[in-house]
């Protein structure tokens, strides 16, 4: 399945409210973390920014609000934070750690017709 995140404009991305699946376990190590969903083959490492925002992805907080919060805490320019959040959301989507996308107007995306074959 193609990631809807990749298709979104900044405006649409900012109003989206990502929701982490409730069965994802979260372990913090200093300012980093490791997360793992019940049916995922492998855990995912979260760098400090990802570990900071991950607990806030509860489906009620918009990306725009997250950008403001991280900017307030770390003082990082908002454009850089948005880029980082796109990377984080893409990583979590790829690992199927997010509940179905909550944006109200996801654009049409083509089906991924060809998936990589399994390793022999």
């Amino acid at each position: 399945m193609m990631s809807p995140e990749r298709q979104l404009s900044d405006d649409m991305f900012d109003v989206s409210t990502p929701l982490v699946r409730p069965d994802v376990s979260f372990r913090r190590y200093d300012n980093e973390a490791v997360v793992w969903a019940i049916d995922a083959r492998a855990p995912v490492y979260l760098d400090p920014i990802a570990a900071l925002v991950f607990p806030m992805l509860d489906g009620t907080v918009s990306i725009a609000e997250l950008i403001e919060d991280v900017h307030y805490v770390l003082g990082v320019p908002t454009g850089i934070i948005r880029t980082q959040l796109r990377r984080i959301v893409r990583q979590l989507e790829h690992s199927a750690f997010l509940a179905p996308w909550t944006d109200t107007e996801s654009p049409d995306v083509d089906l991924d017709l060809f998936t990589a074959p399994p390793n022999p």
Partner: protein
Amino acid sequence: MRADTIDLNIDGHRVRVICEDPDGVTTLRSALVEHLDDEPAPVGFALRRPTADKGMWVLLDRSGFVLARSRTSNEALAVLGSHLAGLVKPPEHTVRVRCRALLAHDASAILAGFPLFVDPPLVERRLERESHRMIDRLAIDIGQGGMLEMSPTPWPELAALPTVTGHTSAPPSPTPIRAMCVSQAADEPPSMGALVAFLAQAVSHRCDRAERLDLAERLATGIIVGVSPHDSSASYRALRELG
């Protein structure tokens, strides 16, 4: 040169061995008679005979990584026998972890995360110089006390073959783990979080996720030595420094 294939079923693991030594095929068929399988199995290991320019027998895994180089076919078969023993069910109350391990001269073990000693391939003579031997298993079994607890090669015909320079079969008694070498691309060794994520993937899927993370945390809190994967001597220097 004709290569023969031997299809095996060892405790449910189906694996094909490709062998370019007719005598070796006879030895393997005799030693592993109760595991012979009529159905074609996925390739697991390949034993290549010496070529004109390289006078060593070479044992490869299914990905083409060199597991051992030896002067004689029987030495390579000894290494192969130990690797095949790694397909046998792990001992009770142990957890299997996909990881290479080396046995030091003081009978302690040093773990090595991928790709160390795999790519570039290990050099047996250099291992010997550092007084270490590679344990010929692609996975290790860790007991509840945190020591290596691995079952021996169960086939007498293969277990009795001559040992190879720089290699050893699984240690016969519980073996303490002294340190772990991990690939380190940057100046800093991997962080705790990155290590836990890396190691948890290698823990047996028979454990639940919490158990896998717990074991990964235990391993990650031991002595960790970062080794540059781009420096072919770095792994051996790390062994020397570990003593």
